[in-house]
C-alpha cells in the first residue's frame, strides 16, 4: 500500500450516487500505486489552495515523434514525489471506441506496470489518455504499445487524432461509413499526426448524420457530416402505428407512454414546414427539406434518411482562443464519401497547402479564413461560391473588385478626367 495522504475534502467526493473517481483512485493507491496516493494528496492541496499544482509543460516525448506525449511536472514534488513527473500519453483509440477486452488489456497491462494506472476513457479529442508517467518510462511504454499494435495520437501543431460517432456499427441514421473514414484518414495522415509541422492544430471529426453526436460542427477544423440527396424514406404503415399510439414518440426518449401527435410534434415543428399529414398519410415536400433530422428522430420506425448518401463538409470550428469560438462553416454542401475518399482528400490537401502557406503561428484555419475572407479560401480549394455557404449574403456595400473585373481597369488619367470636369 502506498503512503496515503489525508484527504478530508476529497473524501466528500466519495459520497453520492455518481461513481466516484476518488474512491476508484484510492483503491489503486491502496493496492500500492504511489502515483495514485500522491495524486490524491496533491489534488487535496489544490482543493485547499484553490489553485492547480502542475508546472508548465516541458519537452518530453518519444523518438521520431513530435507529439503524442504531454509533459507535466508537479510544482510541489517534495510533498508528492509519486507525481513529480506526471506525463500524459495519448493512445489513438479505435474508431467509435469499440473494444475487445483482450486487446484493451494489452494497454492496461503496460500501463499498470509502467505508469500510474490512471487514465481517461477518453480525452476530449478521442484518445485514450494515459495519465502520469515518469520520463524514463516513455520509451519503454511506446515500444511495448507499438509491439502490441497500438500507436500514439496527435498533439501540438499537428493533425489531432480523428474521431467519429458510432456510425453504421450500431446506428440506423449513419449516412456515411464514419468508422472507415476516421480510420482511413488516420492511416493516410500518420505523418501529419506524429510530426507537428503546421501553424496550429487541426482536427477531423466524422458525424454520421446531422444530429452530430460527435459534435464535429463545434469541435473540428474539418467536419464531415453524413447527409443524403434523395427523399426521406417513409413507411406509411408505421406512420399509422404512430398515429394510433402503437409506437411511442421519439424512439422512447420520453418514456414508453409518450404518444406522438404527428401534426403538432412533427409537421408543425418542421423548420421548413415541408411536411403535411392528412390523418392517414404523411407527405414530405423533399425539395424543401433541409434534412434537419427532427422528423426522423421523432419517428424512427416510420422515417429514414434517403439512400443517395454522402457528406456535407464544414470547416473551421474552434474554441475561443484567440479570436473567439467558431463553429464550422459549410464549404461543400454534398460530396460522395466512398473509399478511398480521393475527392475529399484532394480537397484536404488544397486546404492544408493554403493554410500552411498563409497561416500565422497559432492561427487555426477558421481564423485564417476569417482574416483572408471566405472568397480567398474558396479560390484556394477551387470551389465555386454557392449561396448554401452563407446564412445570408453581405449587407455591407464594401465589395472588393479586382482590376480585371472592371472595364478599362483601374488606371485612369486625371488630365482626361479634368477635360470633362473643371477643378
Amino acid at each position: 500500500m502506498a503512503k496515503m495522504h489525508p484527504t478530508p475534502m476529497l473524501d466528500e467526493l466519495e459520497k453520492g450516487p455518481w461513481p466516484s473517481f476518488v474512491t476508484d483512485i484510492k483503491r489503486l493507491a491502496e493496492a500500492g500505486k504511489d502515483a495514485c496516493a500522491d495524486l490524491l494528496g496533491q489534488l487535496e492541496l489544490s482543493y485547499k489552495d484553490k489553485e492547480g499544482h502542475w508546472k508548465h509543460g516541458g519537452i518530453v516525448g518519444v523518438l521520431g515523434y513530435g507529439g503524442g506525449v504531454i509533459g507535466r511536472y508537479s510544482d510541489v514534488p517534495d510533498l508528492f514525489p509519486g507525481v513529480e513527473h506526471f506525463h500524459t500519453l495519448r493512445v489513438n483509440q479505435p474508431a467509435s471506441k469499440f473494444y475487445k477486452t483482450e486487446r484493451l488489456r494489452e494497454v492496461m497491462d503496460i500501463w499498470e506496470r509502467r505508469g500510474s494506472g490512471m487514465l481517461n476513457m477518453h480525452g476530449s479529442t478521442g484518445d485514450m489518455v494515459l495519465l502520469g508517467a515518469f520520463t524514463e518510462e516513455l520509451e519503454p511504454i511506446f515500444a511495448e504499445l507499438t509491439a502490441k499494435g497500438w500507436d500514439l495520437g496527435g498533439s501540438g501543431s499537428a493533425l489531432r487524432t480523428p474521431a467519429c460517432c458510432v456510425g453504421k456499427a450500431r446506428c440506423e441514421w449513419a449516412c456515411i461509413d464514419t468508422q472507415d473514414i476516421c480510420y482511413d484518414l488516420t492511416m493516410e495522415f500518420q505523418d501529419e499526426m506524429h510530426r507537428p509541422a503546421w501553424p496550429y492544430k487541426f482536427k477531423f471529426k466524422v458525424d454520421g448524420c446531422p444530429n452530430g453526436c460527435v459534435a464535429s460542427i463545434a469541435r473540428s477544423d474539418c467536419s464531415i457530416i453524413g447527409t443524403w440527396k434523395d427523399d426521406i424514406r417513409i413507411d406509411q404503415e408505421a406512420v399509422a402505428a404512430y398515429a394510433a399510439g402503437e409506437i411511442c414518440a421519439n424512439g422512447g426518449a420520453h418514456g414508453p407512454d409518450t404518444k406522438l401527435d404527428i401534426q403538432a410534434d412533427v409537421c408543425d415543428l418542421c423548420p421548413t414546414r415541408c411536411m403535411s399529414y392528412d390523418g392517414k398519410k404523411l407527405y414530405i415536400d423533399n425539395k424543401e427539406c433541409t434534412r434537419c433530422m427532427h422528423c426522423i428522430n421523432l419517428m424512427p420506425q416510420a422515417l429514414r434518411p434517403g439512400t443517395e448518401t454522402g457528406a456535407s463538409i464544414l470547416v473551421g470550428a474552434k474554441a475561443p482562443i484567440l479570436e473567439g469560438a467558431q463553429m464550422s462553416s459549410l464549404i461543400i454542401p454534398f460530396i460522395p464519401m466512398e473509399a478511398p475518399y480521393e475527392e475529399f482528400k484532394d480537397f484536404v490537401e488544397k486546404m492544408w497547402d493554403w493554410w500552411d502557406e498563409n497561416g500565422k503561428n497559432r492561427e487555426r484555419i477558421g481564423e485564417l479564413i476569417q482574416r483572408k475572407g471566405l472568397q480567398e479560401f474558396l479560390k484556394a480549394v477551387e470551389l465555386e461560391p454557392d449561396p448554401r455557404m452563407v446564412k445570408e449574403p453581405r449587407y455591407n456595400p464594401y465589395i472588393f473588385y479586382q482590376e480585371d473585373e472592371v472595364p478599362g481597369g483601374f488606371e485612369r488619367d486625371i488630365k482626361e478626367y479634368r477635360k470633362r470636369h473643371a477643378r
Partner: protein
Amino acid sequence: MADRITDIGPPKYDEMWPQYIKDNYGKWKYHEILEPGVLKHVTEDGFELFTVRCGGTRLMTTLHLEDICKIADQYCDGCFRFTTRNNIEFMVTDTEKLEALKKALDDNGNLPKGGTGACVTNIVHTQGWVHCHTPAIDASGPVKAVMDDLFEYWNSHKLPAQVRISLACCLNMCGAVHCSDIAILGVHRKPPVIEHSHLDKICEIPTAIASCPTAAIKPAKVDDYKSVQVNAERCMFCGNCYTMCPSMPLADAEGDGIALWVGGKVSNSRTMPMFSKLAVPYIPNEPPRWDTTVKTIRTILEAYANGANRYERMGEWINRIGWERFFEVTELEFTEHHIDDYRLAVTTWRNSTQFKF
C-alpha cells in the same frame, strides 16, 4: 531505430467488433429506448441488439476498467464500447442476457444505468486540477458534484429534451464546451503576476507580447530585468500569455472560479447549431462540493424543465421565451458582464422594439 515500430496507427475498428456488429454493419433499421439506459436496435432482417448505457467517470484506474472488462467478458462476448460523452455501453443479443447484465451492473454499483433520451447525460469535461497546468477550476470534482445532484435526471426521461452539460477548466476549452445546453467554464479574473527575474530566461518576450489578443502586453524593464508589463485595463484574463510564457501565471484562489453558459447545441435538428450564452459570469470556487455551482445548475435545469415544450432544447426554449424571461424565471442577475464587448458585440444588441415587460 531500424526496427522501431512507428506510424502504425490504431487497431483497425473491425478488430474490435463483436461478431454481431460485423454481421449487421450498416443494416440497422430503427432503435428504441426500452427504459432509461437501455436501448434496442433492430436491423432490416429483424435482428435485435440490446445496449445498456452506464455512466463513466472518464478519469479512472485500470482497476475500474478491469471491472468493466470482466462484465464484458461475462455477458458480452468480451466486447464493449465507450460513447463520445464518456459513457460505457454493454451490448447483448437477447433479453435473457440483458436481464443478467442489468443485474450484474446493479451489483457493481459503480456503473449506473442511464444517459438515454430526454435526460441529463454524462458531462464531458477536461482535466482540471488533476492534470492541467492552466486550470481555473477542478474538473472531475465539480462533475461528480453536479452529477450526484442531477442523478434523478440521469436515469429518467422527464426532461423536455436531452440536456448536454460540459465543463472546461479554462478558456482554452479543451472540451470545446461552447455549444452545450449548460457549460461550466473555469475563468480567471486577475491579470498575470509576472516573474520579472526569470521571464527573459524562460520565455521569448516577442512571443509573449504577440500572444495577447488585446495588445495589453508591452516590453518593460523592471528592476534591471528585461521583462514585460500588462495593461490590466485591457486584460480579459484569457491566459494565452501564460500558455506562451510560464513566468506569467494567472491562477489565484480569489480570482478564479466558474462561469455558467446556457442554450448551446451542436445538433442540426430543427434549429441550426447554437453557441452557449453567458448565464452567470462568476461563481467562486467552492471545493469540495461546489455548492453554489451545483445549486445554480439545478435552478437553470428546473426552470427549463418547467418551462420548455417537449422536444425543445434549452436554447430553443430561451429563444422562444426571450432572454429577459430567462433571467426572470431563473432569478439570475443580468449584469454588465453579460453584454458582449468583444469583436462581434454589435451583432448582439437588440435592434428592435420587441421585448417583454
